[in-house]
């Protein structure tokens, strides 16, 4: 029988090999896959987020933990899907048109995946039309927009306007972030939320999830 506490520790310590090994062992021992996620992995990621907030963890630790989580989830997800379980939420993420910076966006994407979201990453320099297509193709609940330059921030507003004119604005929550982006700007362009860092982005997305009917 796998020691499931080891899964918690492996995610917390960013140890992808152990996370995968313990997950395999647990699944072979018929442990309920949902239990692995909700009782061990999500609490581990929550602890990772807490340590990041109080500056015990930094970006490398976040990335390694998210990778460990993702490694386990790749084993677990097919089982969850087979049993009809849905991901926490579906996210389309990208850096807006004209902006080629993707490190922050990648970090947010990794942590959302680690948080149980299904993430479609469109990359950098993404046109408003491509966001709309991806929302339709993936039936997204969230669209996350990144910009690193004040020059490219107005492209966030363009995306929201295109979502409206394409009739998909009400289908998604729009979250924005990136170094020069502020809560005030998010409100001004009619986004649904702003997060200051990747860890906060996961909290924000969770808090905005529609309660199950």
């Amino acid at each position, binding site marked *: 029988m796998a020691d499931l506490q080891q899964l918690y520790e492996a995610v917390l310590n960013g140890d992808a090999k152990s996370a995968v090994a313990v997950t395999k062992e647990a699944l072979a021992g018929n442990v309920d896959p949902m239990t692995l996620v909700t009782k061990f992995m999500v609490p581990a990621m929550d602890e990772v987020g807490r340590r990041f907030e109080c500056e015990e963890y*930094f970006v490398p630790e976040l*990335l*390694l933990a998210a*990778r460990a989580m993702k490694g386990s989830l790749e084993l677990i997800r097919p089982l969850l899907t087979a049993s009809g379980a849905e991901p926490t939420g579906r996210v389309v993420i990208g850096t807006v048109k004209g902006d080629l*910076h993707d490190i922050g966006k990648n*970090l947010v994407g990794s942590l959302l995946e680690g948080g149980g979201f299904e993430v479609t990453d469109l990359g950098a320099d993404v046109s408003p039309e491509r966001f709309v297509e991806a929302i339709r193709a993936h039936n997204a609940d969230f669209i996350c927009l990144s910009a690193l330059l*004040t*020059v490219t921030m*107005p492209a966030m507003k363009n995306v929201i306007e295109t979502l409206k004119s394409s009739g998909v604005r009400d289908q998604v929550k729009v979250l924005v972030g990136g*170094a020069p982006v502020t809560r005030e700007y998010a409100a001004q362009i009619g986004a649904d939320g702003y997060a200051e860092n990747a860890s906060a982005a996961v909290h924000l997305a969770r808090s905005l999830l529609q309660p199950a009917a």
Partner: protein
Amino acid sequence: MRLKLISCEIVFREMCHLLAEAEHRVDVEFLPKGLHDIGASSMRKRLQQAIDGVEAPEYDAILLGYGLCGMGLAGLVTRHIPLVVPRAHDCITLFLGSKQRYADYFADHSGVYFRTTGWLERAENMNQLQQFSIQSKSGMGMSYPELVEKYGQENADYLWEQIGDFVRNYRQLTFIEMGVEQNGRFEQQARAEAGERDWKFEKLRGDLGLLRRLVNAQWDPEDFLVVKPGEKIVVRYDDSIIAAEPAS
């Protein structure tokens, strides 16, 4: 007029050249290049300190040799004398001479990294700020050997791929020649850098006009914001870039 210029040293050669020919007496204080990397609120504090340190009665206005620089100017207050700021997102506008020229160039060249004399000969000045930079404080400023040392080879490879290279999506290096270069060595250095990264190289002719009008007190409202005593700088998400509001 007596003017006090507080400027980023990225425009050191350009400013010195212009000040030598300026119509007014302009005193200058240069601040280290790369303040935008310490984050908007830290940058703002540093600039506010410099503004507050100006002996107001001696001057008619304070000039800022900065762009908005990733929100670093948002919230700056002037208490006793006007503060004059070019309407610019960042220093590329200062080098190209107009925000419209920068906007037009950026529209066709989003993956471009810029070089001028300031970047080429003052890169080492980044080091004094490095420990305060967002990259460094968030653990993203580590070299590959440092990552290996701390996280082990396998983890380091993954981390380097994720956060190692801030400019990996860039495709071109554009050298802006300002006319303050003594010879071709800056251009050669920029060409060599582009070659190392396998980027396209382009040379643009810069335009000192905007900076010249800044130091010569020709502050047309289209290109300059004059912040009156008791007002603060706020951001506008349109072509005007910045505006002034009561500081309250």
